[in-house]
């Protein structure tokens, strides 16, 4: 039943979010080449192939790039971050190949270190927002 539900969902941002709200990091996989896309893409940009299937990602990867943000987005300011409490946003390279952007947890935004790049990280989900706007956000934690 779960497999059926997975197969039927369209490769859209809404499906990606629905999976995250279920605690799953999901992508699309080109059945012909095995290439994985996160967030899911309906068309493989390299081959133009459309034979996609859903695949669940391990959530493991390494940090490729990051920043410690002192002047944040309105959503992050609402979440309690400011100049005195900067947050870290990163680009993560997943072990299945694709990269994705997410907040990096468990590190001190006031003590950023270029040495974090290349370090192993693992996905987690955080809930943010009030009422109807409450949703899951992807985040990563550094493995120490």
């Amino acid at each position, binding site marked *: 039943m779960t497999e059926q539900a997975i197969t039927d969902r369209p490769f859209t*941002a809404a499906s990606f979010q629905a999976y995250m709200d279920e605690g799953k990091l999901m992508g699309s996989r080109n059945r012909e080449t095995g290439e994985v896309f996160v*967030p899911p893409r309906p068309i493989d*940009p390299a081959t133009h192939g459309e034979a996609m299937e859903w695949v669940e990602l391990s959530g493991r990867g390494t940090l*490729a*790039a*990051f*920043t*410690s*943000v*002192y*002047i*944040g*987005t*309105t*959503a*992050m*300011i609402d979440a309690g*971050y400011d*100049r005195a409490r*900067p*947050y870290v*946003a*990163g*680009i*993560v390279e997943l072990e299945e190949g*694709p*990269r*994705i*952007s*997410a*907040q990096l947890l468990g590190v001190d*935004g006031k003590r*950023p270190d*270029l040495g974090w*790049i*290349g370090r192993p990280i693992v996905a987690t989900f955080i809930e943010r927002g009030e009422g109807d706007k409450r949703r899951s*956000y*992807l985040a990563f934690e550094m493995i120490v």
Partner: protein
Amino acid sequence: MKKLNRGVAIVGTGMSRFGSFPEKTTRDLFVEAYRDMSAAVDKGFDPKDIEAVYIGNYSSDLFEGQGHTAPIMADWVGLAPRAATRIEDACASSGVALRQGILAIASGAYDMVLVGGTEKMSNLPIAGVTDTLATAGDVLFEIPAGFTFPGFYAAIATAYMHRYGASADALLRVGIKNHDNGKLNPKAQFQASIADLMAGRIARAQQKGLPVPGWQTEMDFMHDDGANPYIAWPLRLFDCSPVTDGASAVLLVGEELARRFTDDPLYVIGSGQASDAAALHDRASLTSIRAAQVASRQAYEMAGVTPEDIKIAEVHDCFTIAEIIATEDLGFFAPGTGHEAAEEGLTSRHGPKPINTSGGLKSKGHPVGASGAAQAVEVWKQMRGQAGQRQVDRDVDLAMTHNVGGTGQTCVVHIYERR
């Protein structure tokens, strides 16, 4: 190899003063740029001969609550009912408007086209500006991660520094250099070097009897967390282009018509444009901008020239790291060596490859939708020997402009020749 079917020339350029002007709207700014352009056409022109208008504008919708900008700009300079088209490619909007004007003339559809850009950014509080600029990123998959525009380029900086061992000081050097240039540009937002800013603050502290900062060098100032705070580590305030109001205008004609308007036109001999994935994380490289590599390759091929031939370039330094990477993407320096070139002063006004003699987006200002066409204004002045105190000390027969949208989703490159 792709060639234009008809040559295209620039016979006039202009720009408004760049800065923060609470009393001016996008249309006031554009009128100012149009008048400046009109005054620059040596033999004059009849506005009735303008057949079409292409306007770069990123987001008057969000900045000012005004959409459908192009016909307003055309009408406000008296050009209705000419065709008026708005181009929105984020910070590359007016670079792309310039290219659209060039292609329209090259096609034979028009003989004379007005292109330009306009942006009024300072109405919104800084949080509103941050959120509006962030919509040039991927709002589904990047902004929820907390990325801001400084944050994107800061992440590029960490990837670059980690890969090539570059120091944050190389970035700060770009800011110091561009302020040195902008000091000499009467249209620039900051007409002050970093040394001038330091001296001003020291004098103010002395006047008010406050503790006097102990900066000895410009780098002391740049390293001071109070004077130059982090915006998105490793980028500090003076690594970031400012919030700017401004407009730009360029008059294009078919090459064979150029000398009716001036004895000293510029010829657009190369033009290229490319795109890339919406999200920075989806790019093949985090330490270069592929769209810039592709667009510049197209422009070089069309022009039949090489990076060594280019005498000066205006590049898209929305953040200091962007200038360093641009000088590599355009082929001026090998990948991973742009930071050394910046530290060694190779890109200063007196160096072998002057970059951003106008002060660049950093010091001249960055009214996002106007910046691309404003780059052509500097090239026009330098190539015709009209850049005043910041005029480079050599003959500029070939120049380049490089205008990036977003984090590299768009790049447009032009090569100009003086014959």
